């Protein structure tokens, strides 16, 4: 499978995430769009790791472990994303408790 297909798919998913962040006002949906962007990057990292593995195989590397790093990075991104979601949702719940809304337009206290 040409790597360009995977790059185009990741670009599409990432830009859909960006559009979601820009067009929605619900803080939870914005957060979900950020997760979508993280997943687009993960998919690209896995595709690149497999591309690297194929290139190393064609170049005569017989160990067969080239490209392992990329998949481990994806694993660590998932770890960080899980921690981020738990803290972020706690912040959103706290915000809902204080202003009884998840609308990001009401989060303008730093302005005054």
């Amino acid at each position, binding site marked *: 499978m040409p790597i360009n*297909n995977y790059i185009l798919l990741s670009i599409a998913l990432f830009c859909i995430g960006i559009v979601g962040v820009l067009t929605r006002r619900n803080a*939870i949906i914005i957060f979900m769009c950020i997760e979508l962007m993280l997943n687009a990057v993960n998919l690209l990292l896995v595709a690149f790791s497999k591309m690297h593995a194929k290139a190393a195989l064609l170049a005569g590397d017989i160990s067969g472990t080239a490209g392992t790093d990329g998949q481990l990075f994806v694993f660590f991104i998932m770890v960080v994303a899980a921690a981020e979601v738990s803290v972020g949702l706690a912040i959103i719940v706290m915000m809902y408790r204080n202003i009884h809304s998840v609308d990001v337009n009401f989060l303008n206290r730093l302005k005054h």
Partner: protein
Amino acid sequence: MNIIQILFWFLSVVAIFSALMVITSKNPVYSVLWLIVTFFSISGHYILLNAQFLAIVNVIVYAGAIMVLFLFVIMLMNLNKETEPQKNRWLKMAGAVAGGCLMLVFVAALKDAGLKDQEAMVNEGDIGLIKNLGKELFTTYVVPFEISSILFLSAMVGAVVIGKKE
């Protein structure tokens, strides 16, 4: 067109369609459900790339744990179509145009990248199997692995402290 290409295009169409439904659904609960569909199709891509460990982790962590957390919070707040805040039409259009411009820039950069003849290894190769990944994770990357456990601990403490009623 062999079975792998058919699966690739099918999964890509499902992923992009459900991602679009995430950002266009009025009801937040539907958005979460569509996002789960997106994550499953991305897991399908991982299986197609023979990254089986990541496919399973993606299903368990994202589709299992994180999305349940989102769904739980949305249901706790009783959000639905009526309470959903809407941006006005011009702002939405501006956001869509900005995202489209970014996509244009990315695609234009890709045309110049010179990756035309590179291929990803599909449905073969064993770097994505748990034997290889586990060996690498517990030798070369053992320090980041331990640090991530501290990250989890601090995230847990932080979530409890932030979510606690004062």
